[in-house]
């Protein structure tokens, strides 16, 4: 007998339970139903909620190096590539202008007790080597930025599918109802290719959609957060009280529709967000030591440092999934030409804030149940694009490196092996589906049971693929 994969609760049954409970009100109902179920009723969603088994991690911070960070120049040390530098090698490339093999211009060394290989590009992150779990055998499906970023986010190369943060929100709900549970912190210089489609809820309820904070300096961090300047606090307070009375009366006259009560609650939450979010986004509240650890006041690192620090403040307050973008369709890790200049510049921005995030989370005891994912959409080719000092590397989806840290992982582990020049994985290949399945697993979710019916298919984050990579888990 095949197991029933779905943990779904029949929607009719849920609504009936809610209706039946109408007599004793929301508080009583909340005490007898799991919180997720209650939320589901608000949102007309179709799947039951809550973890499938005890989670190892309660929240995720994902740091996305946009543009394609070179695995060969960061974590995947290939002595053979150094040796064969400048010799011919045959492989297809996206731009069709593949040159000779090119060694890594930076020195690789082993770091920490684990002896994890990290190149000289990332000295601070190397200092965190014993907290990292490095996967050097990642493969992705597209050699093109936008679809590849979409696959890392949603599992699919077409837009319109829910991002992992949306799936987690849908499955687990918010820990802090005064904050969105899926927050996106874009690079203030530019959004990734595809823009908000990269953090869409897709076909999941709008409650699951990512809320992109405005990360440029100045202005409210959330759209429409601020009461317009020409409305006095008193006028807003009185009008809100009037509105509450009207909406309460209307809800009482229409007992069959539970969304009417949810609306009243959401106005209250919104009002609290107006008060709480600006404070959370105010990094001035952090100590000088913390600010300098991240590099908030250093021009080179300021943008990513602000986002990393904000991410920590958000997860501290119960945000479930924070996604930080480093790079976008403007400036990014996309080193088609001048690999050295590009990666040195990007790494200087990236290295210190990200390392600070890990040590800060650790110092506050948060790393134990926070999963940090260091991802990129693809790696870069072992052959150069162009010649000479200013040559770059092309897109390389068939082998790249991601790193992870924190909740439930085996720290200091380097997993997977690419071939002698880092062109293809030779063992322990890890697909993006596998990465997603593993992340969901650490969050207490079975990727095969987390489904949502849409246009004829019970959709999953992992489509019909994916295996939990048990070896990564402590």
């Amino acid at each position, binding site marked *: 007998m095949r197991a*029933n994969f*779905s943990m779904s609760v*029949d*929607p*009719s049954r849920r609504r009936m339970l809610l*209706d039946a409970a*109408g007599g004793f009100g929301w508080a009583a109902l909340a005490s007898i139903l799991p919180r997720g179920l209650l939320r589901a009723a608000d*949102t007309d969603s179709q799947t039951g909620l809550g973890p499938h088994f005890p989670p190892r991690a309660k929240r995720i911070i994902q740091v996305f190096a946009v543009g394609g960070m070179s695995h060969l120049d960061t974590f995947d040390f290939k002595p053979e590539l150094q040796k064969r530098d400048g010799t011919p090698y045959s492989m297809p*490339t*996206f731009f*069709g*202008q593949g*040159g000779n093999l090119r060694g890594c211009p930076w020195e690789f060394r082993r770091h920490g007790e684990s002896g994890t290989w990290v190149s000289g590009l990332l000295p601070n992150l190397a200092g965190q080597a014993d907290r990292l779990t490095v996967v050097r055998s990642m493969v992705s499906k597209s*050699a*093109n930025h*936008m*679809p590849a970023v979409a696959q890392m986010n949603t599992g699919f*190369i*077409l*837009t*319109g599918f829910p991002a992992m943060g949306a799936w987690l929100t849908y499955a687990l709900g918010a820990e802090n109802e005064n904050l969105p549970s899926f927050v996106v912190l874009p690079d203030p210089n*530019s*959004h990734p290719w*595809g823009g908000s489609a990269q953090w*869409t809820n897709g076909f999941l309820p*709008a409650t699951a*959609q990512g809320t992109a904070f405005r990360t440029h300096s100045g202005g409210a961090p*959330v*759209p*429409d957060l601020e009461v317009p300047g020409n409305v006095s606090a008193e006028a807003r307070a*009185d*009008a809100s009280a*009037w509105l509450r009375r*009207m909406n309460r009366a209307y*809800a009482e006259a*229409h007992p*069959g*529709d539970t*969304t*009417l009560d949810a*609306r009243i609650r*959401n*106005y209250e*939450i919104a009002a609290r*967000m*107006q008060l709480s979010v600006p404070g959370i986004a105010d990094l001035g509240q952090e100590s000088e030591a913390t600010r300098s650890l991240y590099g908030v006041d250093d021009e080179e690192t300021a943008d990513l440092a602000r986002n990393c620090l904000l991410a920590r403040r958000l997860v501290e307050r119960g945000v479930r999934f924070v996604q930080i973008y480093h790079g976008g*369709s*403007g*400036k990014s890790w996309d080193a*088609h030409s001048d690999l050295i200049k590009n990666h040195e510049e990007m790494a200087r921005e990236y290295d210190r804030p990200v390392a600070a995030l890990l040590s800060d989370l650790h110092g506050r005891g948060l790393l134990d149940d926070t999963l940090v994912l260091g991802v990129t959409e693809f790696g870069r080719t072992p052959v150069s694009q*162009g*010649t*000479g000092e200013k040559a770059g590397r092309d897109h390389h989806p068939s082998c790249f490196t991601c790193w992870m840290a924190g909740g439930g992982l085996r720290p200091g582990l380097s997993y997977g092996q690419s071939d002698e020049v880092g062109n293809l994985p030779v063992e322990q290949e890890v697909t993006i589906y596998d990465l997603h399945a593993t992340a969901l697993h650490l969050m207490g979710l079975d990727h095969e049971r987390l*489904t949502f*019916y849409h246009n*004829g*298919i*019970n959709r999953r984050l992992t489509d*019909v*693929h994916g295996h939990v990579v048990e070896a990564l888990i402590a």
Partner: protein
Amino acid sequence: MALLLAFLGAFSGVALAGAVPEGNEDGPAILERRCLQCHGPATQMGGLDLSSRESAIQGGTRGAAISPSEPSKSLLLARVLAGEMPPGAPLPTDDRQALRKWIAAGAEWPDRLHDRRAGLDWWAFQPLSPTSPDRTDSAGQDRPSSPIDGWILNGLESAGLKPAPEVGRRDWIRRVSYTLTGLPPTPEEIDSFLADESPQAHERVVERLLASPHYGERWARHWLDLVRFAESEGFERDLPRDHVWPYRDYVVQSFNEDKSYLHFAREQIAGDVMENPTRDSVVATSMLTLGPVDAVGLTSAIPEERALIREDMLEEMLGTVTQSFLGLTVNCARCHDHKFDPIPQEEYYRMKAAFEAVWPPTRPVPSAGLDALFPHGRPILTPSEERSRDRLIEDFEDRIERASAALGRLYRNARLKSPADGHAQPFARWTFDTDGRADFAPLHLRFVRDAEVSGGTLGASTSARSAGAGELEEEDPGAGEGFGVSRLLDQEIDSKTLEAWIDVVSAPEKSLTLMEIRGLSGFRGASVDGIRYEAGDKPRWENVSVGRFRSQDTGGPPEDLQPGTRVHVAITYAKDGTIAVYRDGKAYGASYRPDPGIPAGRLQIYPSGDALVRFTASKHLRLAEARLYDRALSASEIAASHRSGILDLNPAMLFDRLNPADQREVKRLEHERAGLQRRLDAIPKPELVHSATVRAAGPTHVLIRGSVSNPGKRVLPGGLSCIGGHPGDLDLQDAASEGVWRRAMAEWIASAENPLFSRVIVNRVWQAHFGRGFVGNPSDFGFNGGLPSHPGLLDQLASDFIREGWSLKSLHRSILTSQVYRQSSRHDRSAAAKDADNRLLWKFPHRRLDAESVRDSMLAVSGELNRMLYGNSFRPFEFGEKRGSLRHYVLTQSDTPDTRRRTLYRMNVITATDPLLESLDCPLPSVKTPRRRSTTTPLQSLSLMNSAFVQLRAAGFAARVREEAAGVDAQVNRAFELAFGRRPDHREMADSRSLVERHGLESLCWGLFNASEFLYVR
């Protein structure tokens, strides 16, 4: 309780099983997928039923299928291994092995099969069977006024439920106004309805609303959701599609005209290849090609990647067609047989074959060297109009060319000597004296954007005239530099020399390629060589090449360009790949030989007919003359060329040197040419519309496991085989044209014989009235869509719909005049306990307005709605902010009459969605959305509370109320009437009065817009 749940379960009908993982199926899964269609509980060919162990052992006419005693000798296995079963499509080896293993292991069945997928007996595949509801008069029950009411009452009674009482008239008119037009009734419309005491009062309102043009706007939105109406390309560039809005207007108009739905569907599938295509029928085919286009990926250097992207496009197209019209997810059968419905993989490819040649009207712009494809429109012309227009244009262009050539000859006669005299003979030369014509080879230039020849040099236009050459502007909105682009090479060029005399206006801050030769076949593979000024730390001259494979700093001294000087630069490319740069006749640094070990390091060959020469029009560096040689000149030849220099000539100087007769001739020719040019410009430009366009396509093969590198057998177009009474064999010939194929497919899909076609649309229309269709998943009538709540009613409405000539307005009338639609939304706890989802319709569902209705209603209530119909979309954003290499959309908070049009007319750009609309569940334009969600979130509250749009409308609303009523009480009354369609009660009046007195009308108006009563329909 258990009984109750079982009852509800039967109605919920939603399959909750997870997707079956691929490639590791066991025996039962294979039986389910490949055998049970013919040997299942429904159909038992040869008397065999394989859905349980018992029935399999019992066997059919040929005996037991499974032998428990001797498993390896089982008949089932023998026939499968012999390739006889399933007939025509034997099992792959993996599946055979899995079956053998499973049988050897004892052939254990997991209960009864066949309850997890649909067979040929699935309800939706059966022909329509319209029957009247079998009503017996029960005591005290009014006779139903329509068959709709009869069927609904039957359902209610069988569950022990009663319909709700009739809704109040105020609520009814608000409800029906939103259903048909998406706008609230005005207080005047309400009053006149309330005053109408005739029995036809309701019908009169229905007729008025059906005749309103706002009806088409409202219902077009439902359709546009379904067909993922997007006015941008998606993927990384997300370029705007400027010619898509005619499709939106076509849909609005079709609804307003009550066009036959059969015709509406056929036009969208094959309107461009019908017997007599019209503008509208061509526009209709936009539906096929509104999906996202990965224009960058389509030019990948990796052929498999290109092929895969094309297959994805076709799957998207086929998915839209089959889900929209047939409610079937045929696209799920691209890699394997459909997991839930009886659709073999081969039939996916048969359907795809009819669409294989369909592309969006996107086109490459290689001549400008711009990468890849751009959204475009297709000219609306009949073939004969197109031919005569082409002839006319060709004729003018010929005559202009003849005049230009004659002028060129006269001017050239006026030159004192040819610079070729005594020096190397160029392959082509551009003197830029008077125009962009070339000497020695017909590589005459065409100017793009602000490129022009003036004062004897080529550069960026110095006048403020708008960028000409509109063609490219249209295709590449907002693009940068101007170019002089030559005609295609008429001879292959390998070794070569590029030479240019450059007049310095000022030193450019950015690097610039002044003269280049470039191949065209795909920009990924394109090769380029050319004279480049490298700006930056060390300004210098260099050869340009894609990927810098042939580019190097030659070590020449840093360039220090002085305004008012002239620089001579030449680059030679020798057979062995050596490249040398010269400045002012002397070697500039050292010559070098790029790495010959890689193809891109060798001498590039520019083929005849597939390469051109391009000059960049700069305002910093102007070209006084340029030459192309078909060999590498020697250092001394270059020195000589520099020494002899060029003739600085311009039209006036040349003219003075002509004899009077030639001067007259020049004047005559210039006059003639200007006249011809005016007439050419005056030829009306055809309207451009988005649509399907047809490109040559190879034969269609089944792709094994969906892999583009693993083609299987060849197939011809055909429909599906699972639809009862409507065979999918189209009997099409190999030699038939693409148009014949697609037309046949349109006629197969949109047909009275196809029961899915009518059922699916009737179900959608029902859903738009009641929030939910008989089938809850309106684009999936297969197994996962579940069973319909009222199959009899669905079939009856479908056959009435066909009989009424596929008239949607007739269907509306019959639904809107039923008692079911006139029920109140009153809640009934005991009914909810039996049917919480209200699938039996014991009340009218209480629902939130969709995003567009919310925004439109605020505009209507504030009196600011611009009711202009049709036309170009409004764009509350700017496209152009450049970050890196890409342009982005930036939302603007503009508030103009244009932005105060209905939301339908807001340009549907994928990366320029509106936060307020998004928070109200407006879907991404690129996503097929058969049913809107209705969520309520804190972000939605924030947007409704604080967004600039709501503030503006509240202010407008307050201004309107002040104008229409005097005194606070009268103003409160008016505000309630406008927003809610009723007056406030005493308590509300007191509460509102005090709010207005303290904070003004704006506060009240803001509150009304945020009130549930405004945002919901009951």
